[in-house]
């Protein structure tokens, strides 16, 4: 397993947000994590990236405990994050936002400025504009490109469709096959279930800090998802 959580319990101060979450991610695999607002999806990604610290062996990277490492160290191990809300740096241009993604760690691999501009051509035209002056969809492209610049072996995407128009979401998801084809393992956190299932190999559904469903993305039924999503009968 390239990435694994074991009985992960994460908390914000006194408030417990995760109650023993176990997920696995194999090399090259794409996993979708779905769940309602507040289910704990972002908390799970924050725990993996080290923004929230946990016991060391609650998160394993290639079998090594990373649960207590700070984010900058986790990132240097090849786990890159596209954070919820995009979080571009307002003081940096589009190109600088991309460059900073590969500034500390740049493993050999397919991604470079040129490759990102190939993937999202509109960014080339806007490369000198402040990152935050772009439209929501374009900002999301920058956030994805920024994470790819390090040539990560694991890419974590937190609600990349958030607040975007359906046509824009389609454009962004159109980039995922190209990303997957390079061998990067991907976790997509989504509320847009159909979108998530269309790119994923497997799906986890979370509710109130617990995993309520683990299934292959193809073949899982709406009823199963509904049950896992809301807890009630379909």
């Amino acid at each position: 397993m390239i990435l694994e959580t074991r009985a992960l319990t994460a908390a914000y101060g006194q408030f417990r947000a995760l109650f023993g979450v176990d997920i696995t991610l194999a090399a090259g695999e794409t996993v979708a994590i779905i769940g309602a607002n507040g289910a704990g999806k972002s908390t799970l990604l924050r725990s993996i990236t080290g923004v929230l610290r946990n016991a060391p062996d609650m998160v394993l990277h290639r079998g090594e405990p990373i649960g207590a490492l700070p984010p900058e160290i986790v990132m240097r191990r090849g786990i890159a994050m596209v954070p919820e809300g995009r979080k571009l740096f307002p003081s940096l241009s589009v190109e600088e936002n991309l460059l900073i993604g590969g500034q500390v760690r740049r493993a050999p691999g397919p991604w470079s400025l040129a490759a990102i501009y190939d993937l999202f051509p509109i960014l080339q035209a806007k490369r000198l504009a402040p990152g935050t002056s772009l439209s929501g969809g374009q900002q999301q492209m920058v956030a994805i490109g920024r994470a790819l610049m390090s040539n990560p072996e694991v890419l974590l995407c937190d609600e990349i469709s958030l607040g975007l128009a359906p046509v824009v979401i389609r454009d962004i998801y159109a980039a995922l096959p190209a990303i997957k084809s390079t061998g990067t393992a991907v976790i997509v956190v989504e509320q847009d279930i159909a979108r998530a299932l269309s790119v994923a190999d497997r799906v986890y559904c979370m509710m109130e800090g617990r995993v309520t469903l683990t299934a292959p993305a193809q073949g899982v039924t709406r009823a199963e998802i509904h049950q896992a999503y809301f807890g009630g009968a379909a």
Partner: protein
Amino acid sequence: MIWLDTLVQGILLGGLYALFAAGLSLVFGIMRLVNLAHGDMIVFAAFAILLITQTLGLHPFLAALIAAPVMFALGWALQRFVLNRVLGKDILPPLLVTFGLSVALQNGLLQGFSADSQRLAAGPLESASVDLGLVTVGWMPLLTFATAIAVIVGLNQIFYRTALGRAFRATSDDPVTASLMGIAPKGVFALATGLAMVVVTIAALYLGMRSNFDPSIGPARLIYAFEAVIIGGLGSLWGTLAGGVIIGVAQTFGAAINPEWQILAGHLAFLVVLLLRPRGLFPRAVD
């Protein structure tokens, strides 16, 4: 032509204040830390340069070259081992720590060097002047001003042209997201304070060559630096130079009217700008 002369002297004096302020502006801009010991650090650096000139018999410029990396290391260590621990949502702890540091530095210098006034001997440069046609200006004020511009250009080059500067700006924007890029915010902060101490050393060099200094004068330098930074708009280095110039010009004109008004005129100019433009002349768009 008296007023022109006064204006030019004021502008050049502004260069010194901009040097005092640049390090403060740098640290505030990157980590929102108000360093109340900034003025005392300038005085500390001036004594460090003095010590090097005396023990090694070097000219102050060469001594500053030696002092700069030492000050960088001290600033780096101060940030790494002390200030990083108190930085957080609450702005009070770092204020208290730097205030304590200010008191400790003053008393330490008093112990080590006594309350006697000191000066860095710059030789013939101290009194040399150059005739610019309409006005005659001293080489030292001219050099100070040119250095202030060079420092600001240099810092801006670092900020906007280097990977380190990119990390500075990103960390200033959002330290958590910066850490997701593999950047250790605390390491960036330590480098920033180290760099600020290099600028402090340059400020100390000119402070010491142009006027007497003793362990007690730090807080007054801090006030000038503060005023320059706030007039210019927090976080803008060119604004800081403009702020320094405004204080300098106000001071020389005040002094021209009545020598006792020099300091007061500077503070009044600060208050007037603050009344008219509460966020300073060149506020940063994002804050």
